[in-house]
């Protein structure tokens, strides 16, 4: 459009008044300043059209001209090729980005925003640390926000395999608990347990809940609620400290096998049986002469195919013997310290020095 034609139109006063009111309207809404939001707040908030916010997070992808941030319900529209180029440039070297955005569809679910500017955000740990500071500044009534932030950090740690940020999740949750603590009466142990329950509802991390409860127990040693919740979380007190049941079992020397906790020798026994049954065994195991086996056992050596007495002559009696039946076969495990010897039908099928396929299962 050329200048003179535009100027002639502008002489119309009604149009000017309309424009004035439109401007006044946007001004009334636009009195809100750009606000820095933590991602976890977005779901809670209602936005006004044109409202500007700034948000930082882990960049996921550019999908249909919209920037997706990790765990962020909102979507951010790329409005120009400049912005698009900037997003791609920044995300090439930086995992996190900061977006200054303006709300375009506040009523949409999730609300939609258009990107005004984009900048690189600090490294993840610093960014999350900042989020924690910002969220905690919202005040005690927003403690649940801290828990949600903690949950997001845990999801991030898992998704992006960044175990070092798990500490920050704990920090967020503990900060949330501290905020809630400030609202509780000094002797209110039950209330504090309820706070931890709330946290556990959002961040189902037993270890974290256990730590918080263990700390509470030192403060309220007589409070049954604390112990009850610890038991409910399947925690055990051992050597003066509360621990998760799985840590307790590990300390007891057990190993996980499916959903069971097994002694190391039992686990080895089961695996050996499984390997034996899977593999087609040679029908003839006793492949040497009796004299050869005798000679070996007299030298303290064992070999596949030996009978129990020959193994005994080589090694003595075992410390323990385990027996199991599977598919009509009876399996015996002789345990000498941490060395295991296996018999089927009174013939040795596997021993620690054995380098056969069964042994290397």
């Amino acid at each position, binding site marked *: 459009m050329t200048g003179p034609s535009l100027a002639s139109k*502008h002489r119309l006063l009604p149009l000017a008044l309309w424009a004035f009111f439109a*401007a006044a309207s946007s*001004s009334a809404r636009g009195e809100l300043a750009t606000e*820095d939001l933590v991602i976890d707040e977005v779901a809670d908030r209602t936005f006004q059209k044109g409202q500007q916010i700034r948000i930082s997070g882990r960049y996921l992808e550019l999908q249909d001209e919209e920037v997706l941030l990790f765990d962020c319900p909102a979507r951010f529209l790329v409005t120009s090729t400049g912005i698009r180029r900037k997003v791609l440039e920044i995300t090439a070297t930086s995992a996190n980005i900061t977006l200054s955005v303006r709300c375009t569809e506040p009523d949409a679910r999730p609300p939609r925003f258009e990107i005004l500017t984009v900048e*690189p955000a600090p490294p993840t740990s610093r960014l999350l640390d900042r989020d924690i500071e910002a969220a905690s500044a919202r005040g005690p009534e927003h403690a649940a926000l801290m828990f949600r932030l903690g949950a997001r950090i845990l999801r991030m740690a898992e998704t992006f395999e960044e175990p070092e940020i798990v500490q920050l999740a704990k920090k967020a949750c503990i900060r949330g608990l501290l905020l809630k603590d400030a609202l509780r009466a000094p002797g209110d142990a039950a209330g504090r347990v309820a706070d931890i329950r709330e946290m556990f509802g959002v961040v189902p991390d037993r270890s974290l809940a256990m730590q918080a409860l263990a700390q509470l127990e030192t403060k309220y040693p007589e409070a049954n609620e604390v112990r009850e919740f610890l038991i409910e979380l399947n925690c055990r007190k051992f050597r003066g400290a509360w621990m998760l049941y799985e840590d307790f079992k590990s300390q007891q020397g057990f190993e996980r096998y499916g959903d069971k906790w097994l002694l190391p020798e039992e686990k080895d026994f089961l695996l050996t049986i499984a390997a034996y049954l899977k593999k087609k065994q040679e029908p003839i195991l006793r492949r040497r002469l009796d004299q050869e086996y005798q000679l070996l056992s007299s030298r303290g050596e064992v070999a596949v195919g030996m009978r129990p007495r020959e193994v005994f002559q080589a090694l003595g009696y075992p410390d323990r013997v385990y027996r199991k039946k599977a598919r009509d076969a009876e399996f015996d495990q002789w345990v000498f310290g941490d060395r295991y010897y296996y018999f089927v039908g009174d013939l040795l099928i596997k021993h620690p020095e054995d380098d056969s396929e069964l042994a290397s299962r």
Partner: protein
Amino acid sequence: MLKGNLSGFSLGELLQSLAVSRRTGTLKIILPGSETKHLYFEEGDLRFFSHGTPRTPRIGQLLRNSGLLDEDQLKEAVKEAKASGRLLGKVLLEQNVISEDDIRRALQQKISEEVYDLFGLEEGEFEFEPDTCPEEIFDSLQKSVPLRIHTSPLIMEGLRRLDEWTRIRTVIKTENEIFDLGPQGIPPHADALTRAVLSSYDGLTPVGELSRQGNCTRFEFLLTSFEAIHSGRLQLLDPETALREAETARANRHFIQAAALLRHASEQSPGDPAILVQLGDVLGLYYQEGEARKSYLQALELYFEGGDWSSVTQLAEKLPGHTELDLRHLQILLQAYVELRLAKKALWVGNQLASRFQEQGETGEAVSVLHSLQQLDPKDLNLTVQIATLFQQAGETQQATAYYEEVARGLEAKKKVRDQVKILRIIADLNPHRADIKQRIATLVALEERLEKQRKRRITIAGVSIIAILVGSFIPLLYELKARELYSEGRRAKEEAFQTGDYTKAKLLFTRLRNSYGLSSPSRLAACEIEEIQAIERRFIEIAETNLHDADDEQQLRELTERVESLMSRARAAEAEEDFEEAHELIRQVMGVEGAKDLSVVQELKLPLLLATNPPGARLEIDGQYAGKSPHVHRYRPGDSVTVKITHAGCLDLTSRLALTSQIRMEIVLSRRPLAEHVLPASFDQRIQPAGLRRVFVFPSQDGNIYAYDPESQSIVWQQSVGKFGDRISDLNVREGVVYAGTVNNEVQALDVSGGEVRWTARRIRGPFQAAPAVSEDQRLLAVANVFGEVYILDHQSGERYGEFLTENRVAASPVFLEGYLVVGSTDSHVYAYDLASKSIRFIKELSGEIRIDPVVHEGAAFFATGDGCVHRIAVEGEGQSWSTRITDRSIVALKTDTRGILAAVAAGHVMVIDPAIGTVDRQWKIAEAAPGGMLVDGDTLYVGFHDGTLVAWDMSADRRSWSWQADASIDTEPLLLSDRLYVACSSGTVQELEIFR
């Protein structure tokens, strides 16, 4: 299109030109930093102004800044607009607060101010596109309000302001500066503008920020401020105060304010990098990453200039990633790491820098970087190889060859022939014409083969040398050992001679030592010994000669006899009262009476010696004659030597030669001898148990059977198969004619003790088991626990299951029944109390360590030992332990009860007696130096078997060893006492039968 640069053509001239020629079109001004301003002129007059986007100014703010609306009015109108849902402008018009002209004036003022600000531009480009209006960039408010600003007054005012700006900048150098009201305060007659401007200063907010917040224009604000500064009413905030205030602001989470204060402080102290670092930290806290980075980099430069390498490296940690740093900053970092000799980091940065240079084709720079890295580790040939590779990649063959040759020299110095050959081959590839290199390669390959041969030869020579050294050192050692042996023998002979007076043998041995082993170290000692013996013999001769000259008369003889008689009479009385010490003393007095030696009674006088044995009642033969049974009194003259033979059933015969000098009593402990040795089919690391039939005992064997054995007839009474060869079944429990055992076949069996028949078998129970089953006091229930920690309670009569529960680890110790509860200690360090009535766990108590040995029950409480050397009392009624006592640093291997208390055998060879009420250690006996295998209490005697094969009978009332016996194999279990016979099971598969002498 008209284009140009503002450095050559000022804005004033430009606008003047447009006004004079009454041009229509859009002037685009491109500021340094790519910011643009658009001015649309219509016939030389300014119509629209834009920053490049159609951003509509906020009407409320615009009116307030123009002074047409105060803060309260604005707030009230905004409130009304929100409440009614109407537009703010409409509300203001309806309230008659403003008119449409007000809006036009406000807009005109705002645009004019924008244009005035452009007059200060010294750099920037401009483009004028005639007859064009990019409508989309101008906001709707401007479009709807017909504005026309005459250019000439605009130019005049702009130029005036330019002059004023020059003055203002002499005082307010940047808009980051912070001022505060001085002591003079606001002048009482100041106009409204001055009052408003001065009252906005708070000593915390930068002047630029204040100028944007005020109700006047920025120019008015700064001009007023300038005048106030000039008159001393406003004072520049000193950097120290700014830093202090910044710290407070940061603590209160006012990051923007803190950043402003730090920025001011930094500008006032431009050489202080610490402030810049603080500023960067604060900026980072409120998302100003780019600004923060700038601050950090400025600080980095300053630290670099100051040579503060340590701070440079610390600051580097704050920068997000080195990949984003430019070359200069990477160079700074590299230098810092090199200076601080942080080799790892320097290598990382250096390699990155070198790569960047290489990418840009600056091989020389890359090499220089690698050279600096070489300073860190001049011997690092890898770096030299990298440099050579860089040159090679750049096609600089000559340079590359030179570096490769340096590497080759380095490798030659290190004698790494193989690597040297590799490098030389690269050089040869680079320089195919160089025959010398090929020759060197051939020489080195030959050398390598030769070295390999030498290495093998060296190993052979070293082996031979070691053998020679061993032989050479062994012979003198044998010579010295033999000499010492002779010396020890001589010393023993000399000590014997002190009693007998015959030094011949000792003298002979010492003389032989001197003659045959003169070069050994004991040779000189032997010479001293010979001299000493000779001196003793000389003194003997002198005494004999003196005695020959003695003479007595009759009177003296009578008195002497009376005196001797008196003493002898008292000595006999003392002996009758078994006071042998007194008798000895008196007889010695008789012997010492002057002149009494010649009396026949004295010459026949003998000293009494009480010969006792352990055990007593041994038959004594002295010098081949039967002398009686011990205890026996033998009489001797000092110097006598006798041969004593002692025999006793159950003990080894003992023959001993006694040199008698002044001995009063002798107790000879006889070594025990087994009455019988029973060779049985077991290795006996599990207890043998009394069967309750004469001396029959039962035991499990790992040949798959349980045996009952009668030691009297030395025959197996019965054997019952309970598994296969090799099976390790549980320890046995024998109660009321039944033997209970847990087997590997996942069963618990009850056998009849008289014939071994199976009474019942409980199946569907997981094995194996280690600890013996336990039977309740009322004979109603049986409890057994397996190595998985599962505890089963069975009916004693039928074997049917009564209850079960689970512990968290192996159960190695027997359960115990205690006052209606089953108490089980697990290796999970917990004790479980199971209520037999309600069939539920009453309590679980954590102890200080794993429970592996059988507990004992004493006066209504169970006593557990844990692997950490503690003993714990668990009383059911108190729901837990009464006490815990740490009694040793070693492990406890067995517990027993006795009237004295709880006896705990410790791995160090001690037995401790613990008070069951309070847990204190009342007594402690060191029984032996070995680890006990098991113990048995019989009255005052404690029998302890040790893993080294020692069996000790300890007299607990006298706190001493009564006797001991040495088996030929380890004793790993407790002995068994049946009808005054002690049965000791050894790991060799024998049970030794020893007699108990009560």
